[in-house]
């Protein structure tokens, strides 16, 4: 009976999307339904998180078709951790949208697309079936294509074209990988796949093609997460999209790629052992993870450096934030890479990545909303038109400042603990003789210094200095500023009351590596 709560967030978001489409003639009612839907979604996620905290894992078999034959929805600590982040960011961005997007745009399609985006994200976090994951990705992407091109100006259509073509190719590659995995392992259910991969001889599975197909799939997830070398769509798309959509893209949909990497590689593919002679030169370890660890490490390192250096030289606020997203996602992948390579720190590494993802999700969406507030008031976010915002609108500036501080990693904000856990993962890996731990420490330190550099520059150019005419005469919407302040307060709350967050992250990391429990619950009565 209690398992029905698993599908509740999905249904709430879907019904909201449909209702907002039907209520197009009644803009006030449409907006009210949209906000009520975002609130209802948050309530459902809270109920689900409470239920999962009680029972550790909830499984819902759609239409009563038992796994592995039907589609299964699985909510465990990892899924709910990501869903809580989604609920907070999507509620804030929905309120922001109501005051930010033009009346006509809202009436036309905005609310429907926005909630369909939430549907896609939620489905991706909950599904236990790899083809179903593809479908939810498409739901999420289709709405994001339209949202990126929402303003339809010259630069928006150009950015959307790039974003759409790249992701269409990504979808084709994902389909290829999934088809191949089905053919080699004989199943699409994640739990069933993990069970079969753990015992390949019994099911006649050849691990070599599985490794190649897993690599193909990895490229798709890296594209979604915007990790170097798949980052090139990020700056244009984030700048073109309306501010609340950028907040959702950077805060939530990027994390879908990270979630998929954790779920599939640490829960499912980790079960398989590497064929002899296929481990990367200089690395030992028999799990698939030992193969992907060094690759993730190189990609994370490149992201941190490229994102940081790129952000320092931008001439507009949105550009700094977009490049910063590339760098910060590197900080999320770095502990994952260490966790994959060094089994001793696996849970710690995943927990570090999750805490960092939560911190980045809250902070970056808040910064994009702050940037949107400035754009709405001043008309531009290019540094040449800005200056002196701190004196003109101190409350908004404090919000931006807190967001910058948390990404830099100043206590007691949430970002401090994210950075601390990343450093701790690297240090612990070094203590047990893990390869590359010193390099990881150096990278994290260098990345942190770059973060200080680009945020200092953004602050100096935009918020200090002499007030420009545009900044002085602009009026700053109190509603939008209030949303930014609410998210900034969330950053402080997460930082000050960090203990429950850490416990949730540890539970999520535990759920990610505890394959036995996952398989037993999805496939009751089958030996894992």
């Amino acid at each position, binding site marked *: 009976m209690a398992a029905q709560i698993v599908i509740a967030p999905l249904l709430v978001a879907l019904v909201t999307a449909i209702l907002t489409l039907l209520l197009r003639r009644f803009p006030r009612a449409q907006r009210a339904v949209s906000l009520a839907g975002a609130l209802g979604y948050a309530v459902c996620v809270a109920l689900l998180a409470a239920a999962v905290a009680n029972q550790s894992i909830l499984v819902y078999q759609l239409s009563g078709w038992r796994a592995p034959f039907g589609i299964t929805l699985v909510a465990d600590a990892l899924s709910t951790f990501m869903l809580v982040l989604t609920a907070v960011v999507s509620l804030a961005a929905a309120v922001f949208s109501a005051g930010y997007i033009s009346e006509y745009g809202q009436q036309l399609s905005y609310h429907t697309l926005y909630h369909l985006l939430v549907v896609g994200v939620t489905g991706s976090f909950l599904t236990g079936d790899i*083809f179903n994951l*593809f*479908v939810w990705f*498409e739901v999420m992407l*289709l709405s994001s*294509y*339209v949202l990126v*091109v929402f303003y*339809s*100006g*010259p*630069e*928006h*259509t*150009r*950015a*959307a*074209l790039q974003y*759409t*073509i790249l992701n*269409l*190719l990504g*979808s*084709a*590659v994902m*389909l*290829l990988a*999934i*088809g*191949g995995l*089905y*053919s080699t392992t004989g199943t*699409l259910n994640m739990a069933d796949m993990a069970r079969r991969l753990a015992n390949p001889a019994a099911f006649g599975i050849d691990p070599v093609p599985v490794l190649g197909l897993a690599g193909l799939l990895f490229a798709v997830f890296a594209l979604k997460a915007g990790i170097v070398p798949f980052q090139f769509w990020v700056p244009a798309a984030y*700048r*073109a999209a309306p501010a609340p959509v950028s907040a959702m893209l950077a805060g939530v949909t990027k994390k879908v790629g990270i979630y998929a990497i954790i779920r599939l590689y640490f829960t499912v593919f980790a079960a398989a052992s590497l064929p002899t002679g296929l481990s990367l030169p200089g690395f030992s370890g028999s799990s698939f993870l030992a193969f992907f660890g060094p690759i993730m490490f190189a990609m994370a390192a490149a992201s941190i450096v490229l994102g940081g250096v790129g952000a320092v030289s931008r*001439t*507009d606020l*949105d550009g700094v934030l977009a490049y910063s997203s590339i760098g910060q996602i590197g900080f999320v992948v770095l502990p994952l890479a260490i966790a994959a390579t060094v089994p001793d720190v696996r849970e710690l590494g995943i927990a570090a990545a999750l805490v960092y993802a939560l911190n980045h999700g809250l902070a970056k969406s808040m910064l994009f909303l702050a940037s949107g507030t400035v754009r709405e008031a001043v008309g531009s976010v*290019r540094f040449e038109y800005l200056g002196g915002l701190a004196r003109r609108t101190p409350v908004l500036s404090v919000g931006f400042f807190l967001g910058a501080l948390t990404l830099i990693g100043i206590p007691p904000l949430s970002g401090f603990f994210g950075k601390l856990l990343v450093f701790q993962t690297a240090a612990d890996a070094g203590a047990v003789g893990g390869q590359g731990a010193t390099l990881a420490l150096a990278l994290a330190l260098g990345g942190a210094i770059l973060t200080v550099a680009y945020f200092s520059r953004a602050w100096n150019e935009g918020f200090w200095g002499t007030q420009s005419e545009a900044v002085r005469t602009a009026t700053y919407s109190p509603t939008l500023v209030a949303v930014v302040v609410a998210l900034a307060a969330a950053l402080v709350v997460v930082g000050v009351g960090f203990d429950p967050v850490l416990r949730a992250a540890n539970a999520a990391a535990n759920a990610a590596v505890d394959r036995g429990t996952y398989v037993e619950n999805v496939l009751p009565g089958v030996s894992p």
Partner: protein
Amino acid sequence: MTQFVLAGVLGLLFTIGTFLVLRRDIVRVVWGVTIIAQAANVYLVTMGGLSGTVPIVGHGPPANPGSVTDPLVQALVLTAIVIGFGTTAFALVLTYRVYEEHGTIDLDELGETGGEV
């Protein structure tokens, strides 16, 4: 024999698709993406096995599970085709919109005309 023909066809489809994606003309790029997506669908169908009989109860030879083609991949392909239909339609509309905004669908010229947001 069928395997070799289909493998050749798949290779050809991916080649044509890749060639078109690398063109300067956006419409050709969209066709290229469509062909690659269709090639992925054909590939998916071949994953169900090629030698079996129709997977319909009551048809074909008496029940022998090994002799029936896997119907699941065909269901998957139907889903993928529907999604591909929607995305292709959107990509074409987007192409038209790009033409309206920039007055060109040549990617090189597009790179030169665009300014900052």
